[in-house]
């Protein structure tokens, strides 16, 4: 069925590490860009030291201690990439952007215009380098072939050789080009899950040619639709995922503003509603949008129109992110004379959401994506040390069981490292329920007995008199019930750091339950069961 479809000839322009290019690295400077504490891009020098995409920050730093770290700022990347897109769009009609750093366009028309693929490739490459304004070159690759997969692989080859790679037309030529390449390309270019590729490796299939040599029916029977898809694109076939088709008419969503809008924040907010509506409508039919046209128009008819593509479908979060990139890049690179009056999202290609998860970073819920983006914005507003996540530390005092670490330093999406030691035993730990309010800086209080004297605890752990009142500048409570002392002696072997304290639970007449600690004759309010 789909194999008889003529595969369109496309060109892929690919910058391997666009975020690093935007961060502005000197040629021999090791730089890496992190997102959610994982490396997503690095410079050539860092790569030579062993830094690789997907590593955790600590791993990468241990391989290359002097590496400069930049946080992922997709908006900045998109704004910089917009210049390239505009420059290429001036000479090529239909461009699709996957993400900042990768763009795809159909070659049939431009190739005829420029007199052949090679000439067109040379022109586009020159224009792109000029627009990117990179004195250091910034290795990029331009690959032209039948089908997105082959073109993407060709672009990666081209990035290494710094010359455009053009594959001859026809499925034979594409298959011949792909055959000797490793199956790892399926993950790297087409987003096939790594587990599948590793399984192929364990079964002895290491090259794409070996995969296509297997009968398609058997591969599909063994691995399901994913195997069939991998077999097809490895042979240079149609790389539109199974079930891809043009959407029914009438699915576009748009909002017309009576009052022109000038703030991109407000536009992004509306885009979010539109995106959720669109994704919801498609989702109700069991479909997901793979190619989306985003159109924004101002009162004076200045238009911004971009086609965005993602092979495993655009979630609402992904759509909003791309709208934000597009609007901010547009506002930055052109002087707009009026506010925006129209925002339109038009799905031009959808596919059935058959549950095949194709993605580079594993299945993740939409809520996780929203949260990670929000944390990045919160850090930008409030600062790195003010946005915190809990880390399990272990301890026998309420404020020691968990500590707070900066969200920037933590792996938000894989928290097992920081939360996994919760179940270790701590003798002397207070039993559950734990207090809901914990004072990391305990407040000094005085505890007096019925006659007004200070309450003490003897060396043998006996309390001098029952506590009758707890007082401080902020508290003046009468004790109704109490329990203690629960003595604790920590680090008795270390003279400098040893601690002896006694803990009390005190219930006041007003119903407050307080956790007090007596150490070296001073009473402290350490927590409250609020």
């Amino acid at each position, binding site marked *: 069925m789909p194999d008889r479809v003529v595969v369109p000839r496309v060109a892929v322009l690919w910058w391997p590490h666009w975020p690093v290019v935007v961060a502005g690295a000197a040629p021999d400077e090791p730089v890496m860009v992190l997102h959610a504490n994982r490396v997503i891009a690095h410079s050539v020098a860092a790569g030579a030291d062993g830094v690789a995409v997907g590593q955790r920050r600590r791993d990468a730093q241990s391989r290359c201690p002097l590496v400069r770290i930049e946080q992922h700022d997709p908006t900045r990347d998109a704004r910089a990439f917009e210049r390239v897109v505009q420059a290429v769009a001036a000479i090529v009609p239909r461009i699709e952007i996957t993400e900042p750093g990768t763009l795809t366009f159909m070659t049939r028309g431009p190739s005829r215009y420029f007199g052949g693929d090679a000439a067109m490739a040379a022109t586009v490459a020159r224009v792109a380098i000029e627009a990117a304004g990179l004195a250091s070159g910034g290795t990029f690759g331009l690959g032209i072939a039948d089908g997105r997969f082959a073109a993407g692989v060709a672009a990666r080859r081209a990035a290494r050789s710094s010359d455009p790679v053009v594959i001859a037309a026809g499925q034979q030529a594409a298959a011949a080009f792909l055959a000797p390449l490793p199956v790892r390309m399926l993950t790297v270019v087409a987003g096939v899950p790594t587990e599948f590729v590793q399984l192929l490796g364990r079964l002895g299939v290491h090259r794409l040619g070996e995969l296509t040599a297997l009968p398609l029916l058997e591969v599909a029977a063994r691995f399901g639709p994913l195997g069939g898809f991998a077999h097809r694109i490895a042979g240079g076939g149609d790389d539109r995922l199974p079930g891809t088709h043009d959407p029914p008419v009438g699915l576009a969503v748009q909002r017309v503003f009576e009052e022109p809008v000038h703030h991109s924040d407000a536009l992004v*907010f509306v885009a*979010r*509603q539109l995106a959720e509506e669109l994704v919801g*409508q498609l989702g*109700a*039919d069991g479909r997901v949008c793979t190619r989306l046209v985003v159109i924004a128009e101002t009162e004076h008819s200045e238009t911004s129109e971009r086609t965005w593509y993602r092979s495993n479908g655009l979630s609402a979060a992904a759509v909003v992110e791309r709208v934000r990139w597009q609007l901010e890049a547009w506002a930055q690179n052109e002087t707009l004379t009026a506010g925006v009056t129209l925002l339109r999202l038009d799905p031009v290609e959808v596919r059935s959401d058959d549950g095949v998860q194709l993605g580079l970073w594993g299945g993740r*819920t939409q*809520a*996780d994506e*929203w*949260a*990670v*983006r*929000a*944390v990045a*914005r*919160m850090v930008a*507003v*409030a*600062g790195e*040390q*003010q*946005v*915190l*996540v*809990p880390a*399990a530390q272990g301890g026998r005092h*309420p404020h020691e*069981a*968990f500590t*707070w670490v900066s*969200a920037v330093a933590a792996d938000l999406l894989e*928290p097992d490292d920081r*939360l996994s030691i*919760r179940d270790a035993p701590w003798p002397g730990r207070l*039993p*559950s*329920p*734990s*207090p*809901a*309010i*914990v*004072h*990391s800086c305990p407040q000094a209080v005085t505890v007096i007995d019925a006659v007004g004297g200070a309450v003490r605890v003897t060396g043998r752990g006996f*309390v001098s008199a*029952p506590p009758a009142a707890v007082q401080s500048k902020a508290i003046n409570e009468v004790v109704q*019930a*109490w*329990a*203690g002392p629960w003595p604790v002696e920590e680090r008795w072997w270390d003279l400098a750091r040893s601690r002896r304290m006694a803990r009390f*639970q005190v*219930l006041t007449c*007003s*119903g*407050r*339950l307080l956790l007090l600690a007596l150490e070296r004759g001073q009473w402290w309010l350490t*927590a409250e*069961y*609020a």
Partner: protein
Amino acid sequence: MAGVTNLAELAERGVLSGVVARERTLAVLPAFESLLPGAVLQRGSVVACEGSAAASLALALAAGPSQEGAWVAVAGFPGVGVAAAAELGVVPARLVMVAEPIADPTTRFNDATWADLLAAMIDGFDVLLLGPGTVRIRTGTARRLVARAQARGAVIITVGANAAFAGDLRFDVTQSSWQGLGEGCGVAHGRRARVQLTGRRVPRLRNAELWLPAADGQVKAMVESVVALCPTG
């Protein structure tokens, strides 16, 4: 897909069928199901937790959505006890806190910073817990943030009374007693609380007797009436 179109039309007319309405709600712990109308939290609502058990109530309300996968953000509540939150059911892996640098009065957040910060939090998190540190936010800013939360579908839970964030629902603890402490003996192993719910969408005020928390730290509806006594003296 004629059925889907009809449901969409119904939603536009303002009559929400059960299916469509369920997507605008967040689940809660079983103990709260008898209290809340519809046994769910409506997305976009503002809930105020007041009284002596405000912190536990707020964390317990956030626990229901957290266990379903929602992310919870805490602001203005520097002393929140994560161990207590985890016992009540909040998932620490999906908890983020914003701590105002209170040590130096000049570095505290001003109103504009709070506005930007809370807007980002509303956009990214389904549940927001606002503690006493947020009472200084201006009413106008708070009203805009509440409107944003309503449009986005986030739930705002305030710990303690917060005049700027006027609540749709108000939880109060009218009676509470900690069990297990005596005169120098025992240990606190549970709080019996009478939780009252009032609000615009609640026609008659509702009450429930809950363990807030029980001995294992969770919130439970009260079923048994026998309470262990501790010997005095």
